[in-house]
C-alpha cells in the first residue's frame, strides 16, 4: 500500500509483487452500444473491461473510442482467444498483438478463460471444456507460464460455464482451477454466474466450489445473466443477473472479502442506465457484506 493525497491505495505493481489482491471497485464491460454514452455522460464506473480482440484492428472507430475511454477510465483487457487448454501450439502472433495492445492500453490486468477454443487450426469461437485431469493441469500450467513470461505479467484465468463433463475426470472443477492457479502463478477471474450455471447443469454445490478455491488468488469477479431452460441453464450473458446469482455473489464476498467486480453483458445490450443500476446493486451488496477498506486504485 502507498499513501497519496492522504488516501490509502493499493499500487497495482506492488500488489502484484506482494500477491495482495488489488481493489479496483466496480466496473462494466465496455460495449460499442455504449461508447457515446460513456464519453458524453462520464458515468460513475470505476473501470471498464474491454474484449481485447475487438480492438486488435488497425484503426477506425474501435481504436478511436478505445483511446477516448482509456483517457478517462482504467481498463482491464479480457480475451477470448488464448485457448490456453488447446493442444495446438500457442498462437505467438496473437500473443504479440496482445502484448502490443497491453503496451498501448496499460490495463489493470489481462484475463482469458480456462478452456480451449480450437484444435487442428480450426477455431470453434467457443469456450470449450477441459477434462479435469493431471494431464490437462500440466498442459495448461506449462502454457500459462509461457504466456506470462512472454507478457511479462501474471494473467487472470476465468472459470467457464460447461454443459458436459468427462468420464476421465480425476477431480472436480474447483480443485482443477485452484491447482492451476497455485502452480502457474495466475490469478482467478471468478465468474459467479458461470459457477451457478455449471452447478445447475452438473449438480454440484456452488458454495463448496467457492470454498475450495484459494481465496487470495481471486482478483476479479464477473456477474452476468443466463437463460434458464428448467432442466439445464445456458450461459448467454443476455439477461440481468438473477436473484440466485446475486445471493451467491453475496455469500462469496462474505467468504473471501472484497473483490473487484464487474457486470458482463454480451447480448441484448440494454441502455447504459440499466447496467449502471445493476452495478449499483453489486456495489450495495459489496458495501454491506465485504466493504473494502481501500480506495480504488488510481
Amino acid at each position, binding site marked *: 500500500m502507498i499513501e497519496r493525497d492522504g488516501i490509502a491505495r493499493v499500487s497495482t505493481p506492488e500488489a502484484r509483487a506482494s500477491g495482495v489482491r488489488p481493489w479496483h471497485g466496480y466496473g462494466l464491460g465496455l460495449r460499442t452500444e455504449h461508447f457515446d454514452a460513456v464519453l458524453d455522460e462520464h458515468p460513475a464506473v470505476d473501470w471498464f473491461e474491454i474484449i481485447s*480482440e475487438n480492438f*486488435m*484492428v*488497425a*484503426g*477506425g*472507430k*474501435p*481504436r*478511436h473510442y478505445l483511446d477516448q475511454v482509456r483517457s478517462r477510465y482504467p481498463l482491464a483487457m479480457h480475451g477470448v*482467444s488464448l485457448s490456453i*487448454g*488447446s*493442444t495446438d501450439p500457442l*498462437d505467438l502472433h*496473437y500473443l504479440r498483438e496482445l502484448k502490443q495492445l497491453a503496451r498501448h492500453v496499460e490495463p489493470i490486468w489481462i484475463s482469458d478463460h480456462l478452456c*480451449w477454443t*480450437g*484444435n*487442428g*487450426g*480450426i*477455431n*470453434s*469461437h*467457443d469456450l*470449450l471444456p*477441459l*477434462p479435469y*485431469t493431471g*494431464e*490437462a493441469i500440466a*498442459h495448461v500450467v506449462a502454457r500459462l507460464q509461457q504466456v506470462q513470461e512472454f507478457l511479462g505479467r501474471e494473467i487472470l484465468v476465468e472459470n467457464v460455464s*460447461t*454443459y*458436459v*463433463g*468427462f*468420464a*476421465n*475426470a480425476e477431480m472436480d472443477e474447483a480443485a482443477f482451477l485452484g491447482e492451476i492457479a497455485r502452480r502457474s502463478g495466475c490469478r482467478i477471474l471468478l465468474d459467479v454466474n458461470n459457477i451457478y450455471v455449471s452447478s*445447475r*447443469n*452438473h*449438480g454440484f454445490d456452488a458454495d463448496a466450489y467457492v470454498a475450495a478455491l484459494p481465496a487470495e488468488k481471486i482478483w476479479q469477479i464477473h456477474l452476468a445473466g443466463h437463460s434458464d431452460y428448467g*432442466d*439445464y441453464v*445456458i450461459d448467454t450473458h443476455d439477461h440481468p443477473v438473477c436473484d440466485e446469482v446475486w445471493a451467491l455473489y453475496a455469500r462469496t464476498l462474505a467468504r473471501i472479502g472484497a473483490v473487484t467486480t464487474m457486470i458482463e453483458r454480451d447480448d441484448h445490450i440494454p441502455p447504459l442506465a440499466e447496467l449502471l443500476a445493476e452495478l449499483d446493486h453489486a456495489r450495495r451488496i459489496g458495501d454491506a457484506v465485504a466493504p473494502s477498506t481501500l480506495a480504488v486504485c488510481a
Partner: protein
Amino acid sequence: MIALHILEQRLLAHLRNGPEFPREWCAQGRVDSDVGLSIYANAYHSRLREALESDHPQLAAYLGDTLWSEFCTGYIGAHPSRVRSLRHFGVQVPAWLTQHMPFAEHAAIAELAEFERCLLDVFDAADGGRIAWSALQALDPDAWPGVRLGFHPSVRLLPTQTNAVEIWRTLKEAQPPPAAGPSATPARLLWRDAERVSRFRPVDAAEHIALRAVFSQQEDFATLCEQLARVMPAAEVPATAVGFLRQWFDEGIMSQLHVASDRAPAPRIS
C-alpha cells in the same frame, strides 16, 4: 485414459459434423450428455451464422431465408474458421458465392457480398494522415509531373459489373431492390472520412483509370495523364486530371505526397 489432444479432436469434429464424440467419454451429470453436446454444437453453428449475418445483412435480405440458410450451411461446412476473430470468418464469402450454384448464376450476389466486405475493411482500416489541397498547390509546378500520391489506408476501389451496390442501397433503406442488371459505372470508391464515417460513390471510366494509377503506387502524375490521354482528347487531360486530384483532396482521401527529384521537368499543368 483419453489423451487430451484426442478428446479435443473428437469433440470439435462432433460440433462441426455430428456424432463423433463417444458418449462413454462423457460424465453423466444432471444434464444428459446428448443434450450437453447438442448445446455446444448448436452454439458452434449459430455463432458462425450470426457472424455472417452481422457482416452481410443486405446479402441475407437479398437471398431470403431459404437461400441464406443454404448459403450459411454450405459456407460454414466448406470453410471452418481458421481465423482468430469472427470479423474475418467471412473473408472467402464472395469467392465461395462465385463457385457454388445457384449463387454463381447471378453475379450480383457475389458482388453484393464483396461490397459489404469492403465496407468492413473501410470501417476498421488503419488510420492515416490527410493531406490538404494546399500542400499540392504549394509545390513548384515543375515538380507536379513527378508527384506520386497515396490514398488514406481506408480507401478501397471496387470494380463493379452489376448493379449490386444499388441493390444494397435499396435493401438498406428497406425498399424493394431493383432487378439485377449491369453496373452503370465501372467501379465504386469507398473510404472512411475524417469523422470516421464510411462513404462511397460511383466513379466513371476516366476516374477509374486515374484511381488505378494512384493505387498502383508505381506511377507518377505524368504517367497518370498519359493513361488518361488514351481515353480522351489530349487537350482535356490536364483539366480532367487536376479535377480528379482536387476532388480527392477535398474528400480527404489523400495521405501521401512524394515528389520525385530525379525526373526531368515536364510541361506545366494548370
